[in-house]
């Protein structure tokens, strides 16, 4: 009965061969990956980091305060986010935080530059969508550490490979939600755009994208959050920043160091999330809230009063009453 518990044959893939092939390809093409793309990405990250580093800390905090206030509509939110950011500076992790932020920003920009057009493409073509969807599922479910190995091989240690791994991981939501958002635009609105003689591009730019914007922005928000999560993991392939601090703490079992840097990561993530989430979602809620406060009877009266022609005919009828 042994055959019930043992496979009839086992063909283990030759993982060494995959290794060898990738390695030799990587070294042959290193002029392209490492010298062009890698160097370019490093430059990009450094440029952003330089910009952030040369911004006075007080300006950044003021910016977070202002954006938090506007996004949430409450001064207290602005104060809270600014205070949280201030905390990172106080515990001495400001520069590392800026490094992490630089990699996040670089990755998100690249993810959006590629993800947005791909999302639009997928919204138009069912076939393309059917092909790309399983690829995206794979990209999202693959253990993140697996990305680190080829990134390391092709781009070496440092921020370039961190950006590459982060982009692959974080590009999925913006593609998905751009495509979803555009598909979900009210069919009649799209028909209207066509019926009034829009070209395809006009319909896309003037109607479909603006109508899908809340969904697209939800995708951008998720992309930012996933980039943030990945950047911490990327410390394993030499990305500097808060993640690296966490990694050191783990390696040396320094609980204090781990806690402080961990909390800073959380703070950065929360601020990024709230600032990018509030802009579109909240505006709708605010108007809804206002409407709910009106008494039903008052609402009825208002509705009738807003109807210019029927209001006139109503007056006539009331006089008969």
């Amino acid at each position, binding site marked *: 009965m042994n055959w019930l518990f043992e496979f009839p044959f086992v063909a283990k893939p030759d993982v060494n061969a995959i290794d060898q092939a990738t390695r030799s390809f990587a070294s042959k093409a290193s002029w392209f990956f490492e010298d062009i793309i890698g160097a370019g990405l490093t430059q990009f990250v450094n440029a952003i980091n330089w910009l952030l580093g040369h911004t006075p800390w007080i300006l950044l905090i003021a910016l977070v305060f202002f954006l938090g206030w506007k996004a949430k509509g409450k001064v207290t939110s602005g104060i809270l986010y600014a205070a949280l950011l201030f905390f990172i500076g106080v515990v001495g992790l400001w520069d590392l935080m800026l490094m992490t932020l630089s990699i996040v920003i670089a990755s998100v920009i690249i993810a959006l530059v590629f993800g947005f057009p791909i999302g639009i493409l997928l919204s138009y073509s069912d076939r393309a969508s059917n092909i790309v969807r399983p690829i995206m599922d794979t990209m999202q479910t693959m253990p993140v550490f697996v990305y680190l190995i080829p990134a390391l091989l092709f781009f070496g240690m440092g921020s370039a490979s961190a950006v590459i791994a982060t982009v692959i991981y974080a590009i999925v939501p913006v593609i998905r939600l751009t495509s979803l958002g555009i598909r979900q635009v*009210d069919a*009649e*609105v799209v*028909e*209207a*755009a*066509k*019926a*009034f*003689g*829009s*070209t395809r591009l*006009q319909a896309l730019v*003037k*109607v479909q994208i*603006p*109508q899908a*914007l809340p969904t697209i922005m939800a995708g951008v928000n998720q992309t930012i959050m996933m980039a943030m999560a990945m950047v911490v993991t990327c410390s394993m392939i030499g990305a500097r920043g808060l993640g690296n601090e966490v990694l050191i703490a783990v390696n040396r079992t320094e609980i204090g160091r781990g806690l402080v840097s961990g909390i800073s990561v959380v703070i950065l993530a929360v601020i990024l999330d709230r600032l990018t989430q509030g802009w579109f979602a909240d505006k709708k809620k605010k*108007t809804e809230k206002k409407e709910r406060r009106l008494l039903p*009877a008052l609402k*009825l*009266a208002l*509705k*009738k009063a*807003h*109807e*210019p*022609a*029927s209001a006139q*005919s*109503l007056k006539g*009828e*009331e*006089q*008969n*009453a």
Partner: protein
Amino acid sequence: MPETSEIIIEAKNVTKLYGPNKAEAARMMRAGAEKDEVYKKTGTTVALWDVNFRIRRGEIFVIIGLSGSGKSTIVRCLNRLNRPTSGQILFEGQDLMKLGKKELLEFRRKKISMVFQSFGLMSHRNVLGNVAYGLEVRGIPKEERERKAKEVIAMVGLEGWENQPCESLSGGMRQRVGIARALASNPEVLLMDEPFSALDPLVRRDMQFELLQLQRRLEKTVVFITHDIDEAFKLGDTVAIMRDGKVIQIDTPERMSAHPADDYVRRFIESADKSRVLSAKNVMITPASLVRVTDSPAYALGEMRKNGLSTVYVVDEKLRLRGILTIYDALRAHSEKLAVADVMQKEIPVCQPDSLVAEIMPAAAEASYPLAVVDEKERLVGIVTKANVLAALI
């Protein structure tokens, strides 16, 4: 409309099939099969089959049918949002199927426009932005297109609402925006796909009336889709009845009611009895003024004088109906220093928002004051006058 006026749109043998086996479906239809049978055997839907009609310039051409009869499909063939499987649509003699990409854009931008059932407004644009859209995609400079848009906005009675977001408008006003948008490019033909179906009957009546006025003034050709026979007869110069993708009868409303082509058309026409369709909430109006139980008779008199009323409803602090106060009772209370609660009449006829107009007609006719409409918590939600009932039925 004079019979002699020029034909602007002509549909010739228009057929639209959806599905995998169009040739087989067409063969079965030619052999006289029914739509359902064809779908079961071939998996192909017959949306339109051999549709023919002629629309004269300046008339309102109504296409009526139940859902699935193909009326929305045919109207979309007229501006080529849909492409017929076979057949011709001639617009001023030009076959629409032969238009190139650029010509089609020009055609949609200048000759024909459309109004949609759920308005099809772009919520990210305000009223002005929506109305000016057609002119914008045509590349007309901002100043000029906004000037033109403002003209048509005034024409549909929305002056002063230009910069409001569409969400802040009621259904009737949104459709006014839809109509203004369709008129902005000064097209020759307006396609209206059940434009008033989403509106409540009271508003619908006003909109129908206004559309008629507007159309007679501007002399636009209107192709109007509806499932409501009353609406069709009220608006249509010519009415076409569709069923299962085929046109059954095309005639003027008068001739159609006198000589229905078959039983289906007859049943359709007979279904037009509004009192069994409309309910109290459709015809009721908001009372001009209310008096609270605790108010003084003097206040009640003032309210009545201000609004020119001879009776006023009395409610408590939760808007629950308590009674009705006539002007005589109020005067008596005022001179004898009584409270409103002492002199008001407490036994009064009421009805619910969902009561059919046919049911409340006797009560409304008998009572010497408007009928109160109360909800399940006895709250006053509106009143129905004799005039309201009559106005809803004609």
